[in-house]
Structures are given as structure tokens and as C-alpha cells.
């Protein structure tokens, strides 16, 4: 039940995030609301206001429905695997469902725009800001990325010194992410200026604000990855504490990142409140449903979202379609992970003794212990105290992979934890295995091995 509660607590965050983001789309920023660009006169038109109000109402009911579904699903009794499958399906639904009213009202607003003839004087052209392009880009000092990189390298160096290659691979994630964020930050700094109208100062301010937000998000992301790496390393013996620290870091990063996005959106709204009276930029033709960019004349693969600080891909490019398609397929296939977990949960642990080996098997994993190299075998009636996972699977029906315990330090497990006894096999090189299939055969195998 606790695992299920944690799972849903993590998932439920999506609802307020989706609500705040989509609700925020109804506030005009850069003359855009619900992905439709309108002139100043169109923004305060009664029909526009009515459509935006209706959208907000529908969005509220959709999010409320999702919230109620969580309460129902969390109370239903089910196994971990089934619970995870349902949770993953719910995540997919929660990420798509609020966009249905968004697209519906986007289309209605676009139809109103057409009906009222709210188009700028020079339509269907690409606006290029010559002045903004001539300005020198300000890059931050490399130290801002080098510091988190250095911090994230500490656990990696420890792993190499200890010659623990599993840990080394795990701690490699931090530095790789910091380097990736650094590269992405440089890449993103080359994007277009935020031209809304002919006001050069407004363009400069909006561009500067966006780039600052983008820069901060990557620097903070780098520190987050460095912090996670450090927390994992420092809590190797206290996995629960490590998990709590990582959870706290995630919450802090999430709050900062969401705060940054909404602060930028607020600035965009405030600064462009008076725009759209004379000339204004309207690129609606290039945005399908106001959210998918399609411009075959644009050489860019990655482009800025019109609102906030995010980026998107150009669907007119084959690579753009592949990226978006792959993301969608990955999202749709996510529930399969739960199905796989259900199969793992149902699959029994088997223990087989042959002339030369003792084989413990569960699902795809096979642990072969050569009898020649066995130094000692013990029959344990109780699980070793303080058993904690380093890398592997821990479910009600099976424990497998690398574990640690108070009495025996590092162990390789493949056992059914529900029923003992279990075999503790010590190899000549000191490696220890703890195996057992939960049947009475374990004792017979023990005697045979003796």
C-alpha cells in the first residue's frame, strides 16, 4: 500500500502542472492565447473572453475528473505489477486528456479570428529581426558548468579507485548529464529573437529574459544532477536516506524550474500587455493546433516555443517527425513496463542442482554457481538482517541482483522471500550467493551439496 501511495503521490503532480500550464495559456502573452495570435482589439472582444472562460471551466472539470480517478484507483486492491501498469496508463491519459479541450477551444478561437478578420497587414511572411541578430551573444563563464561537473565527478573517481564497475557506470550518469546540459545550453543560445512587434526595446528585453531563464534552467539542472550523484554515493549504506535526499532534490529542482517558467510567462504577459495595437507578428500559420511547429522553409530542427522558455521540433523536417514520433511511441509503450513487471511478479524462482552447477533462475535472469568453486554452504532459516538492495529487483515474490546485509556485506540474491529456508553459498573468491525457491527442495539440495 505504501509503495502504491508513493507511486500515486508522484503521479498526481501532473494534474496541477497541466492545469497551471494550460490555464496560463488563456492569459495573453506576446498577443497569443490558446496558441492563437490576436490584435489588441481582439483580446478584449466579448466572444474571445467567453471562449477563454469556457475553456478554463472545461479544463477545471477535466482535471477534477483525473483527481477523482486517482482516489478510486489508489483504493482498489491490486498487486505491484498491476498497480504500476494502471499507473502508467493513467500517466499517459493525464498527459493527453487536458489537451483535448485545449485543441477544441484553439480551433474555435481561430475560427473567430477568421470571422473577424483579425490578421496583420503583412501576413504569411517570416519576420527577421536584423538588430537583434546583430547583437553579440553573452555566454556565461564555463565555471558555472565546471563546478557541478567537478562535484559530479567525485563519486565516479571513487568508483574507479574501488574498481567497482557497476557503481562507476551508475555514477557516470551525473557527469554525462552535466556535459549534455552544457552542450544544450550553448545550442539553445543561438535561437531566434523574441520579436512581437516593431518595438526594439521590447524585443531585446524579451530575448534577454528568455535566454536568462534558459541559462538558469541548465545550470540548475547541472547542479541537480551533481547533487543526485553525490547523494547516491554518500548514501550507499543508507539507501532510504539516499532516496529521501534525492526526493528532496527533485522537489527543489521541480519547484525552481516550474517557478522559472511561470515567472517568465508572467514577464511576457506584463511586457506585451499593450502590444498588438499597430504592427504585430503573427506566425499562427506555422503552428498546428497552436503547439506543433511546421515550417518547410525553416532550416532549424529545434525552435523556441512561442510562450515560456521551452523548445519544440520542426515537424516539416524528417528528423523532427522522428523525434516526436519516437517520444509518442515511448509514451504509449510505457504501460508495457508494468506488464513486464507483472510477468516478473508471477514468474517463480527455480533452484536446480546438477552434477557441476547449482542454478537459480527467475524470468530472464540465470545465476549459475559452479560447484567446483564453492567453499561453503549454509542453510539459513531467516533472512539476513538489514538486507538492502544495491542494484536489482525487490518485489513481494522475488529478490534478485546485488544486495548488502549487516552480517554478510555484499551478496548476490535470487530468492523467493516469502518462504525459507535459503542457501547461503560462499565461493572461494569470497563472493556470496543467497538462493532459494521457497520449496522443501532447498533442504534436500543443501544435504546433497554437503
Amino acid at each position, binding site marked *: 500500500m505504501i509503495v502504491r501511495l508513493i507511486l500515486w503521490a508522484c503521479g498526481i503532480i501532473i494534474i496541477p502542472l497541466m492545469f497551471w500550464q494550460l490555464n496560463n495559456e488563456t492569459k495573453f502573452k506576446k498577443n497569443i492565447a490558446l496558441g492563437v495570435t490576436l490584435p489588441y482589439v481582439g483580446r478584449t472582444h466579448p466572444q474571445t473572453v467567453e471562449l477563454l472562460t469556457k475553456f478554463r471551466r472545461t479544463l477545471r472539470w477535466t482535471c477534477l475528473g483525473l483527481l477523482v480517478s486517482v482516489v478510486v484507483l489508489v483504493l482498489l486492491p491490486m498487486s505491484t505489477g498491476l498497480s504500476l501498469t494502471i499507473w502508467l496508463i493513467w500517466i499517459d491519459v493525464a498527459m493527453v486528456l487536458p489537451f483535448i479541450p485545449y485543441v477544441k477551444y484553439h480551433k474555435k478561437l481561430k475560427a473567430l479570428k477568421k470571422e473577424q478578420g483579425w490578421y496583420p497587414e503583412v501576413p504569411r511572411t517570416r519576420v527577421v*529581426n536584423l538588430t*537583434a541578430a546583430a547583437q553579440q551573444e553573452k555566454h556565461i563563464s564555463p565555471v558555472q558548468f565546471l563546478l557541478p561537473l567537478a562535484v559530479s565527478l567525485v563519486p565516479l573517481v571513487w568508483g574507479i579507485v574501488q574498481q567497482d564497475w557497476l557503481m562507476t557506470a551508475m555514477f557516470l550518469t551525473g557527469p554525462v548529464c552535466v556535459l549534455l546540459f552544457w552542450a544544450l545550453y550553448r545550442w539553445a543560445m543561438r535561437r531566434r529573437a523574441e520579436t512581437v512587434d516593431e518595438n526594439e526595446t521590447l524585443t531585446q528585453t524579451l530575448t534577454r529574459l528568455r535566454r536568462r531563464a534558459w541559462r538558469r534552467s541548465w545550470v540548475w539542472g547541472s547542479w541537480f544532477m551533481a547533487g543526485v550523484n553525490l547523494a547516491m554515493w554518500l548514501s550507499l549504506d543508507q539507501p532510504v536516506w539516499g532516496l529521501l535526499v534525492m526526493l528532496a532534490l527533485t522537489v527543489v529542482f521541480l519547484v525552481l524550474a516550474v517557478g522559472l517558467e511561470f515567472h517568465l510567462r508572467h514577464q511576457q504577459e506584463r511586457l506585451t500587455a499593450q502590444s498588438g495595437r499597430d504592427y504585430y507578428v503573427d506566425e499562427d500559420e506555422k503552428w498546428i493546433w497552436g503547439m506543433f511547429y511546421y515550417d518547410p522553409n525553416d532550416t532549424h530542427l529545434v*525552435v523556441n516555443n512561442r510562450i515560456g522558455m521551452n523548445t519544440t521540433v520542426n515537424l516539416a523536417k524528417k528528423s523532427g517527425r522522428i523525434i516526436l514520433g519516437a517520444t509518442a511511441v515511448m509514451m504509449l509503450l510505457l504501460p508495457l513496463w508494468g506488464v513486464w513487471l507483472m510477468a516478473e511478479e508471477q514468474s517463480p524462482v527455480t533452484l536446480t542442482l546438477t552434477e557441476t552447477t547449482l542454478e537459480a533462475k527467475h524470468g530472464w535472469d540465470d545465476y549459475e554457481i559452479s560447484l567446483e568453486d564453492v567453499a561453503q554452504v549454509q542453510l539459513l532459516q531467516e533472512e539476513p538482517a538489514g538486507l538492502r538492495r544495491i542494484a536489482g529487483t525487490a518485489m513481494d515474490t522475488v529478490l534478485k541482483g546485488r544486495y548488502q546485509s549487516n552480517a554478510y556485506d555484499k551478496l548476490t540474491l535470487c530468492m523467493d522471500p516469502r518462504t525459507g529456508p535459503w542457501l547461503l553459498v560462499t565461493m572461494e573468491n569470497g563472493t556470496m550467493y543467497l538462493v532459494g525457491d521457497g520449496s522443501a527442495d532447498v533442504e534436500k539440495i543443501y544435504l546433497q551439496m554437503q
Partner: protein
Amino acid sequence: MLLQLDFNSERPIYQQIRDQIVLGIAQGSLSPGEKLPTVRALADEAGVNMMTVSKAYQLLKQEGYITTDRRSGTVVSPREGTQTVPEQTRKRLELALSELRVAGWSREQVLELCEQLYEQEG
């Protein structure tokens, strides 16, 4: 200064960039000595190939509207320095006058229009 690129127009993009920069210089939106973006920066901003921007800049340089030097980059040339009419401009003007003549415009009407446009361009 804003450039408006029309990708549905028959006029090539490099020509549109060139024309609008000339227009900007004439209208005073681009003053002599003002720095223009690098080829890469303008290509990035416009979402066009670097070759397109390079071609527009080469044309502007040949016609004397801009100069490039290693230290200050690409800048707008002083207006006094471009007294000679480029051959292409003369040909285009000839063609435009012929079109107006065929359309039945009188000398006075053409001169009046030219005067109006000249005043507009600042």
C-alpha cells in the same frame, strides 16, 4: 529593423534580404557605420541557409551599400560614398519606366510619382 521574408514570392530570398537592407538604409532605419549581423547570426535568426545570407551580403558589398572588415565586421557604408548608380539599378529603373510608358503614363505623372516615393523613402 525588421525584415519580412516571403517564401511564397517568386523573388529569391537573398534578393529580398538585399532589397530590404537597401530600403532600410534609404529610410534611415540603418544608419551609416551601423553594424550588421554576421552571416551565421542572420541565417540563424532568419532560419535560412548561410549561403543565402552570404549571397545577399556579397551583392550589397558589390553595390557599395555595406563594407566588411575584420575588426568591426559588416557595417553600413557611408551614404556619400555611393554616388554612382549600380548597373542593375539603372536597368531596373529603365524597365519600370518602360512599363509605366506602356501603361500610358505621362512624363509629368511619372516624375510626380518618383517625387512622392523619394520623399517617402526619406
